[in-house]
């Protein structure tokens, strides 16, 4: 029991450190606010003016759930790079040598990254209220938890990559090969219904598709798959990613 408690304290210690550093690094906070604004207003409104309404929503509103997922995806995946910086000096050793299991260290890091991403997620949900996205309190709560699930999965993936690489440059390279295909083949920018079949295949194997579909279902009521199906696949994916993360941390 006391052992369980000390693991919880270990998770809390790692999370607290991440959260404090996130709040104190102003650049991180500012950039995580600005980039989604650009997507919604510049991209959504710009492309929207040339594109017909989709399923009765303007393009800006139609891609809103996808943009929310994208912001969380980018921030979450890139979070893995910090572990490489930590390792370049001996910051991480202090944590790795503590009498706390690697699973707990990993869990603390995942929660830290998810906090980081969810600050952005919450900010985006608030913006949604102002640009006319139809959102009730229940929708907000459901959307929040769906984003959190996506974030946990993606932070785990980022950490797996970070734990297995030694240079930040290598990390950027790998992450770009993961991030962009995931984003483009997720249906974030277009409906999944009537795609050419090769593209449809790519979207079906992409776990993020189910996250985007769930978010669009929750917020706009437009589903391609049943929402329970989406949520189950995302959950399964998150569990797999976390398992891989714990293994990677044990080898570190």
């Amino acid at each position, binding site marked *: 029991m006391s052992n369980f408690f*000390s693991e919880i*304290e*270990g998770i*809390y*210690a*790692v999370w*607290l*450190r991440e959260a*404090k*550093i996130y709040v*104190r*690094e102003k650049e991180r906070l500012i950039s995580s606010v600005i980039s989604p604004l650009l997507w919604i207003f510049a991209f959504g409104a710009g492309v929207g003016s040339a594109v017909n309404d989709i399923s009765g929503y303007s393009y800006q509103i139609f891609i809103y759930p996808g943009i929310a997922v994208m912001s969380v995806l980018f921030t979450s995946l890139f979070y893995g790079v910090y572990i490489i*910086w930590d390792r*370049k*000096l*001996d*910051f991480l*050793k*202090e*944590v*790795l*040598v*503590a*009498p*706390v299991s690697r699973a707990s260290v990993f869990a603390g890091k995942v929660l830290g990254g998810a906090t980081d991403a969810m600050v952005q997620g919450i900010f985006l949900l608030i913006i949604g209220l102002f640009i006319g996205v139809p959102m009730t309190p229940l929708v907000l709560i459901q959307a929040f938890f769906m984003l959190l699930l996506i974030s946990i999965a993606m932070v785990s993936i980022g950490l797996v990559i970070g734990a297995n690489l030694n240079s930040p440059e290598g990390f950027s390279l790998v992450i770009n090969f993961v991030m962009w295909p995931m984003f483009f083949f997720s249906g974030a920018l277009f409906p999944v219904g009537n795609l050419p079949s090769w593209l449809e295949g790519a979207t079906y194997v992409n776990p993020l598709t189910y996250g985007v579909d769930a978010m669009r279902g929750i917020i706009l009521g437009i589903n391609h798959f049943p929402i329970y199906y989406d949520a189950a696949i995302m959950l399964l994916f998150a569990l797999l990613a976390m398992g891989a993360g714990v293994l990677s941390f044990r080898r570190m």
Partner: protein
Amino acid sequence: MRAPKIIDSIRFLSFTFIFDIMVIKTEGLTKKYGKITAVEGLNLEVEEGEIFGLLGPNGAGKTTLISMLCTILKPTSGRAWVNGFDIVKESGKVRKSIGIVFQQPSVDDLLTGRENLAMHNLLFGVPRSIRKQRIDEVLSIVNLEKRADDLVNTYSGGMRRRLELARGIMHHPKILFLDEPTLGLDPQTREHIWAYISDLAEKECMTVMLTTHYMEEAEQLCDRVAIIDYGKIVALDSPETLKNKIAGDVVKIKQKVRDIETIKNLDYVKGVQEKDGLLYLSIKDASKHLQDLLTHTGPIDFVEVRSGTLNDVFLYYTGREIRESEAEGGFWERMMKR
């Protein structure tokens, strides 16, 4: 007639339980990185309560050895026990019983000194009831009370090191490992850190194992020193004994006509090393023998007499000098590269 009973039985007991007194013990400890053997078949015993130094040049394998003892690295072969716990099979118990200050900076810049210590408290399971008090205690040992609530990125290199020392002793470890504790610090700060180390070793009743490539550090601070080169121990004893055994005094001679054999055979010459055209003679009581020595060397260009240092000991065993210029970049340089 004396009554030696109690004393004898204590001796007997301590002899029987000699294993317990050795807080660190290694048997053929080896670490290979591909073709490089960083630590090679190391046998070592460290007694409880001593300050034990590992002296060797950059790349000698000091950090690798410490990392294995701290359970961060798994040995390629061989075994080791820290506080009686096997470093591979009982790594959790080892971790709870040791404190570490790493070679490279490991306190968080964007946290305050106190926050860094608080995080350590949580990670090392320091009981909740004594956390606050313990933080104040260690802060006062390293004289950082006044700056405790400032962000670490406003600290000097010496202050960061002191904070790391404070953190290392936080959970009352029985052994404190210090990997190059004064690397890259200026000489004055270095001496301060030495004072803190011996002070806290005494106050906290700890065994300390430190690595260094500064001879003065090993000389000033350590009860015993192991000189390590290419992953092997080449000599091990107290700094005085090491110096006396081979060095005593050192006479440096530049001489045109060489007759090294004659010089080697003089009974007061304990060792001869040749380097860069100079002869280094290890001589006990050089002042007494200098006159006689010069009659044997014939005409010389240059002579210098000084008392021996650990550097001479190192030179004697390896034929090289530990030069500070061989060291990796300083503490600050590495901070900047982050």
